């Protein structure tokens, strides 16, 4: 028997090796076939969508990893951050934002604002669409009308009403025709926007994709295929979209004929969808990806490496105390909870993801006031952690309520929320001896629904800003806002201050308006203790040290339009 075993083993080994070899080589022809299959659309699109050879092309490429996929390139129906970022690559707005979030001229080379602040006249630059036709004021009018039209069913149509464009709400409700929307083309290069009330943050919002123009002729020629692939789009921004591989990669190639051509910006930006951050990080370390997000423990692991960047997002997590619960109507109890929460420890030791403890309900770096200072700098730190005070106020509350209190803390079943809820529970018990906290974990959608109907006592929720102004938060807690005022905070004084600043007598005076908001926030957080801010979410990431000039905006769209690479 031994005689034939050896040769067979050798033969088997050879066959196994050959098997491996065959498979690899079998992969190659198949792969070539694939290039004409999966990858071919992308490859085929390139010559069609790309303009003639670029003069001064630098051949540089930056690859950015995203952990959420592209949803749509149609800027009027988009709702998610990554779609907005990619739309901003290949479309431009009237303005663009600089690093600090200040609006700069883009498709509008200049503008005039009437003295009453109700009429904005934009003078357009000589920009062209990627098919060579000029970008005109009518393209903006058409785009805004489509955004507001009821049949578009855009989730962002509300933003026209937020900046008080004349008839925005009525048109969206179908009560008035599109033509009555307060946006007009005076001539090809002059756009006039009329408002019912002045808006301090209008110019900044003009860089937001919902306000981007739309070329009527092209749009109508595409029917229901508009923006479904690069061939169904034309562009008015610094890049053309040249590759769309759903679930994988989205390629943007610099336009040589863009009126505001930046010769130093990289030629190609690729957004790479990769859900698993672990393998994305390995790819970053191999030098194949330039920008990647960090999650959880990765932050701690990489925070001292070159390229580590922490940007703050505009998301604020807070507890809207349910004021319809009898026990929670006790001010001293709310005070005790406020003082028992150690926000900095939550950010640094519990979350460890670059988040920061909340100093108030309005996030840091959200909005800059008329004095050029950040809102938080003007309003100061109005949250406080003080175990002694917590114990003292709880003792008072206990006396007033006639005994110890048991409360339920609702949170969503994400890892971060769970960790925060457990920490808050432990500390409340520790600093308010006798206070009992039960945890209640729910899926996010269910938590939102329950909190909307006041079916909770304490709950951890968050809000992300729609625009760079405190108003995006202030509006939430008006007694009339049934959709968002989860705790039913009802303060006539708060309402008065906020309304004075948003639509009332101070709406036209930026400094007074700002002061109203500062006072309203203090009232709600540090006097009524109705809203208990916890933390502002951080976004830690690794950025290739050779790559620079990516501008993050916590209340607007992150800017990848002018990336430089060594």
């Amino acid at each position, binding site marked *: 028997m031994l005689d034939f075993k050896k040769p067979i083993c050798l033969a088997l080994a050879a066959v196994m090796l050959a*098997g491996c070899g065959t498979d690899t080589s079998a992969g190659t022809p198949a792969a070539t076939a694939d290039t004409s299959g*999966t*990858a071919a659309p992308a490859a085929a699109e390139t010559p069609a969508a790309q303009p003639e050879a670029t003069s001064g092309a630098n051949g540089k490429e930056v690859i950015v990893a995203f952990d959420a996929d592209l949803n749509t390139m149609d800027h009027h129906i988009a709702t998610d951050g990554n779609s907005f970022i990619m739309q901003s690559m290949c479309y431009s707005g009237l303005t663009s934002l600089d690093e600090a979030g200040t609006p700069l001229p883009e498709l509008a080379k200049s503008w005039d604002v009437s003295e009453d602040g109700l009429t904005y006249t934009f003078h357009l630059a000589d920009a062209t669409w990627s098919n060579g036709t000029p970008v005109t004021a009518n393209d903006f009018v058409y785009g805004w009308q489509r955004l507001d039209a009821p049949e578009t069913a855009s989730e962002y149509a509300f933003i026209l009403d937020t900046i008080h464009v004349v008839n925005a709400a009525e048109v969206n409700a179908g009560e008035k025709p599109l033509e009555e929307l307060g946006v007009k083309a005076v001539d090809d290069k002059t756009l006039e926007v009329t408002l019912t009330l002045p808006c301090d943050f209008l110019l900044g919002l003009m860089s937001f994709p919902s306000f981007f123009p739309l070329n009527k002729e092209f749009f109508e020629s595409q029917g229901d295929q508009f923006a*479904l692939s690069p061939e169904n789009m034309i562009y008015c921004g610094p890049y053309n979209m040249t590759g769309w591989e759903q679930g994988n990669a989205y390629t943007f190639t610099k336009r040589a004929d863009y009126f505001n051509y930046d010769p130093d910006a990289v030629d190609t930006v690729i957004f790479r969808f990769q859900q698993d951050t672990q393998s994305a990080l390995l790819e970053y370390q191999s030098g194949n990806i330039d920008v990647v997000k960090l999650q959880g423990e990765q932050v701690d692991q990489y925070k001292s490496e070159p390229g580590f960047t922490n940007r703050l997002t505009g998301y604020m997590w807070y507890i809207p105390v349910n004021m319809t619960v009898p026990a929670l109507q006790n001010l001293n109890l709310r005070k005790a909870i406020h003082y028992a929460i150690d926000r900095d420890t939550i950010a640094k030791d519990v979350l460890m993801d670059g988040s920061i403890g909340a100093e108030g309900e309005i996030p840091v770096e959200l909005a800059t006031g008329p004095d050029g200072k950040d809102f938080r700098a003007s309003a100061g730190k109005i949250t406080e952690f003080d175990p002694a005070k917590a114990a003292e106020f709880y003792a008072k509350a206990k006396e007033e309520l006639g005994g110890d209190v048991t409360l339920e803390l609702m949170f969503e079943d994400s890892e971060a929320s769970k960790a925060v809820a457990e920490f808050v529970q432990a500390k409340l018990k520790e600093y308010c001896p006798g206070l009992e906290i039960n945890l209640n974990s729910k899926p996010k959608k269910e938590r939102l629904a329950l909190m909307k109907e006041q079916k909770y006592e304490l709950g951890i929720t968050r809000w992300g800003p729609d625009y760079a102004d405190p108003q995006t938060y202030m509006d939430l807690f008006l007694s009339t806002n049934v959709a968002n005022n989860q705790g039913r905070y009802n303060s006539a004084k708060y309402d008065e201050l906020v309304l004075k600043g948003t639509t009332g007598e101070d709406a036209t005076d930026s400094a007074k308006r700002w002061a109203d908001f500062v006072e309203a926030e203090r009232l709600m957080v540090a006097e009524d203790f109705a809203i208990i801010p916890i933390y502002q979410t951080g976004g830690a990431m690794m950025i290739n040290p050779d790559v620079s000039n990516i501008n993050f905006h916590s209340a607007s769209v992150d800017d990848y339009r002018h990336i430089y690479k060594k």
Partner: protein
Amino acid sequence: MSKYITKRVLISLATLVVIVFVLFLMLDKMPGSPFNDEKLTETQRALLYAKYGLDQPFFVRFFKYLSAMLRGDLGVSYVLNKNKAVSELVRGPLLLSIRIGAMAMLLGSVLGLLLGIAAALNHNTWIDTLCSFISIIGVSVPSYVFALLLAYWIGFVLKLTPILYNSRNVAASLILPTIALAMFPTANVSRFTRSEMIDVLNSEYILLVEAKGVRQSSLIFKHALRNTLIPIITIMGPILVNLLTGSMVVEKVFGIPGIGMLMVQAITNNDYNVVIACAFVYSAMYIAMMLIVDILYGIIDPRIRVAKGSA
């Protein structure tokens, strides 16, 4: 025979219709909708529901969907590549996944057979132990662990292949996922081949063949292996199921835009039509595989055909 096949095919088709109905029902009863952003107003939601026909009664929607489906129209996506025809959205990922799955199946079967034969021929030697060890690891360690280990050692440390899928270099990017997915089929086929082969080698007809002085290679490949192969068909079904579920995880690790990743994305986003299409594709592949196995059985073993056909 044709009667038997017709019957099997009809049962499969009926099963698929039931699957679509159950999917439809489950999505309908699931909390949330594709349009449940916290910032969406009730009016906006109503507009969106009306736009996509979601405001209609359940059965109206179901029969509309079913009749459209027969015409090859799977509706449009509500979230991922919003408004794109689902049939188009699914095609690319499906082809890619089938390709990786087929490669993994092929690699797994070939390696598994070789390992199994080697083990059986060297029964109770170190080769046998080694092969058993490999197959136990392959069965017990989940594919994402392999995926991560491969990504780290081969992709990152040795830099032999790319880690993430790259459409510029598809061949190289598919090596690691194929190997990761092939572990399970390799292990299963090898275990099965080993035990079948040992049985066959101990049978009397092999003794006869040996006594007749047939060459060893002819004995193994012509007589023993042939009879070993037949029962292996039985495990192809379970292996395929494992490939289908394993592909979701492996696709996520290597960033492959396949049908598994598309389905996971669609589920997280409540993208109804895409979920139904992906789940349908999975079911159809599984049922088709079962059908093929059943028919092959019938061809191989007339007893099954007769029993099932007349039942």
